[in-house]
């Protein structure tokens, strides 16, 4: 019914809209979250980019994994991620999501978050200052606009891979 060019044109317009109105989920998982309030408030005003915090996953677009991910947290993050509607983007915040950060040798912490949920963007730092956060969001806006932020599609297509990894690391989920 829908012409594929019409579809892709609508997708282009939609991506333009999505990049200027990103709603982050206010779900602070680790110590990196402390840098979010300064970013949201008056000094480094994040709202002028259209980014505001929303509380429930049903309303949010971006899941910020702020800081280290313990096993308990991973279970909740996966539930929350699956409750978000598509298209959704995950931003790995801080070095702990890249390779474990300062908890690189802990028995309790996930080292590479990429095995469990697809990540669109990393913001390195321990913890990243508001300037880097805003620069990271600008990069995210870029890749959304050009249609390269396809983490959610990866999750649907490679669902088995992610589910197997999750089940293995969490015991029986």
């Amino acid at each position, binding site marked *: 019914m829908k012409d594929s060019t019409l579809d892709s044109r609508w997708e282009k317009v*939609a991506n333009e809209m999505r990049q200027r*109105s990103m709603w982050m989920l206010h779900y602070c998982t680790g110590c990196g979250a402390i840098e979010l309030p300064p970013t949201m408030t008056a000094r480094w*005003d994040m*709202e002028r980019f259209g980014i505001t915090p*929303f*509380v*429930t996953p049903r309303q949010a677009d971006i899941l910020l994994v702020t800081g280290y991910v313990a096993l308990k947290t991973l279970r909740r993050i996966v539930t929350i991620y699956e409750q978000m*509607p598509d298209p959704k983007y995950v931003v790995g915040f801080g070095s702990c999501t890249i390779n474990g950060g300062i908890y690189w040798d802990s028995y309790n912490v996930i080292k590479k978050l990429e095995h469990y949920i697809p990540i669109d963007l990393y913001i390195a730092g321990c913890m990243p200052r508001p300037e880097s956060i805003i620069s990271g969001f600008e990069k995210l806006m870029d890749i959304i606009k050009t249609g390269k932020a396809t983490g959610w599609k990866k999750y649907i297509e490679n669902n088995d891979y992610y589910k197997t990894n999750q089940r293995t690391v969490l015991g029986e989920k």
Partner: protein
Amino acid sequence: MVIALKITLYILSATALGLLYMGYARKFVARIDRRYGPPIYQQFIDILKLFSKKNLISHGVIFDLSVMMGLGGIIATLLFVPAANFYSFSNYGDLLVILYLLMIPALGMALGAGEAANPNASIGISRALILMLGYEIPFTFIFMAIMLTVKSTSLAQMAVFQQTHGFWFLWKMPFAALAMIAVLQGQLGEKPFDIMVAPHEIATGPMVEFGGKYLGMLFLFKAISIFVELTIFIDLFLGGAHNVIDLVIKQVILFSIVLMINAVYPRFRTEQTVKFYLLIPNTLALIEIIRVLVR
């Protein structure tokens, strides 16, 4: 045919104005906070993004019907409110009809939120209904006072009365106007009366399971309800409006007053809200009624 076109234009412009006001609200509050804030057209982008969301979930037929009832109800109310001397259907229903029509969308969304089977939503709805009880009581006293003076229940005739007599009820009935500002604050759901959407306490209350296009329709509902409630105030106290420019200027000034109170106050708890409404706006409105009856 012309009427149908006019009505469509009316609905579209009310929606657009409402969305602009919501963007204006964010900008205004941001400037009070000494920061920049999003652009004024931000809400349009938000709604387009919401409608482009895929793979949504729904909890049942009533869940779907509730947002339709919400948006449909507020558009129906819009058609009965006279704005800038444009009467779409105001000849067929008066202020009482408008007041009751305003309750249809609230009830519709309460049903949808109830079907979501989430206690955050149920708590939010119970608080919202208690808040509604709080602000409707002084509201009845206020419009009774005006109905007694104008000797009619039609909102259009109230606006025309002020225009023909050359005064506004804003200074003829100052107590009622003060009470109405408090009522308007509650109707719009701005601080200090935004207990129903307390994002950090109850996960945005009734909207907890609404996402994607449901939330988009709720935003449209919010936009039109801002327009409707501001217009009701203007018709009651600010002498209606002669044309669209007049209407927009009055709405912006009124909304700015509301936003200034919103930016400064924290949130009242539910008991504090009801006690406040039962004491201060009620007394003011009662003083006004007694003044009218004695005259």
